[in-house]
C-alpha cells in the first residue's frame, strides 16, 4: 500500500488513474472539491504570471552561464583555501613549532645566564646619602667591587663584644 502523500500527489497531478483513483476519491471525498479549487488557482496563476518573452534569449542564456561559472570558480577558490589550513598542515605546523620551541628552550638553558656572568659587573649605586650629622657617604667602584664608605661615624667601643 502506497502512503497517503504519494497517492495524494499523484492524484493532484492527475497521474492517479483507473481503480486507484476511484478508491482514493471514495476514501477521501472531501478532497475532490479541493482539487477543483486548486485547478482554478493554478489556471489563474498561469494566466496572470506568464514568463516574459525575451527579445534576445541567447544573450540572456550566455550571461546566465557566465554568472554560474563565476560562482563555481569562487567556490573552488574557497575550498582550496580551506585545504591550506587543513588538519594535516596544522598538525605539521604544530609539530615543527614544538620542535623549534624545545630547541630554543634547550639553548636558553645551556647558554650562560646573564645573571651568572663573571663578577666583573659592578654594583651600580644610583644614590647614596646620609642624614646623620657629621657623616659623609662616598662611593668607590674603581675595581671589581663597589664600596660605599661612611666617614665620620662614631667608633664602636672596643670593649663591645660583637656577637
Amino acid at each position, binding site marked *: 500500500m502506497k502512503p497517503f502523500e504519494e497517492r495524494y500527489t499523484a492524484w493532484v497531478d492527475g497521474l492517479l488513474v483507473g481503480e486507484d483513483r476511484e478508491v482514493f476519491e471514495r476514501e477521501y471525498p472531501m478532497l475532490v472539491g479541493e482539487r477543483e479549487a486548486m485547478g482554478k488557482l493554478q489556471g489563474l496563476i498561469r494566466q496572470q504570471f506568464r514568463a516574459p518573452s525575451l527579445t534576445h534569449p541567447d544573450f540572456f542564456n550566455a550571461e546566465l552561464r557566465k554568472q554560474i561559472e563565476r560562482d563555481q570558480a569562487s567556490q573552488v577558490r574557497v575550498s582550496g583555501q580551506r585545504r591550506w589550513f587543513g588538519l594535516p598542515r596544522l598538525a*605539521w605546523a604544530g609539530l615543527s*613549532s614544538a620542535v623549534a*620551541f624545545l630547541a630554543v628552550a634547550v639553548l636558553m638553558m645551556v647558554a650562560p645566564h646573564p645573571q651568572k656572568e663573571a663578577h666583573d659587573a659592578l654594583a*651600580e*649605586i*644610583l644614590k647614596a646619602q*646620609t642624614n646623620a650629622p657629621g657623616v659623609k657617604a662616598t662611593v668607590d667602584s674603581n675595581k671589581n667591587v663597589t664600596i660605599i664608605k661612611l666617614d665620620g*661615624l662614631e667608633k*664602636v667601643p672596643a670593649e*663591645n663584644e660583637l656577637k
Partner: protein
Amino acid sequence: MPGVELCAVRLSKPFCCQFIVGAWFFLIGVGVSLGQAPPVPVIWGCLLYASNNPSPAQAPDRINPFDKTLEEETGFKSLQRVGQNQTVMVAGRDGILTFPGELRVMITNLSQERDGRLLVGLQVYRGNKELLLTQARLREGVPLFIRGPAWRQGELIIAVVIGS
C-alpha cells in the same frame, strides 16, 4: 600554483601558511620562556671585621673572590666574619638583615630590571639612627660593601649579596 617570490625561490602558498603558523607558535613559546616569573630573591649579608691583625682569615666563601680587592681598597689585610644573616624577599614587604653591634640593613623596593639586575633600596641603621640611604642596581652574587664604623684596630664592613 600561485606563490610568493622570495630570493628567486618560489614558495607555495601552503608552505607560507604553514611557516606563518609555525612562526606564531615559535614566538609564543619564546614569549612564555622569557616571561617566566623570576625566583624569589634571597638577600644575604654579613658583617666583617677588617683589620691588620695576624689572625687567620675567616671571610665567607662568597666574599673570597673579592677579598684581595677589598684589602687593596681598605688597606686591611685580614677579614673576619663577625656575623651573617639572610632574608627572603616577599613582594610588597621589606627585608631586614640584622648584625651584631646594633647594625641592621633594611631592604626596600626590590624590583627586577630587564637585564636581570635588581634595583634595590638599602637603609643602614645603627640602633635607631639611620646612617645611610642608598639605591643600587645589583647583580646576583656581586656584593656591595658598606664600610661602617671603626672598631678596635680596624673597622666593620657590611657586605650585601643577592642570592642565597
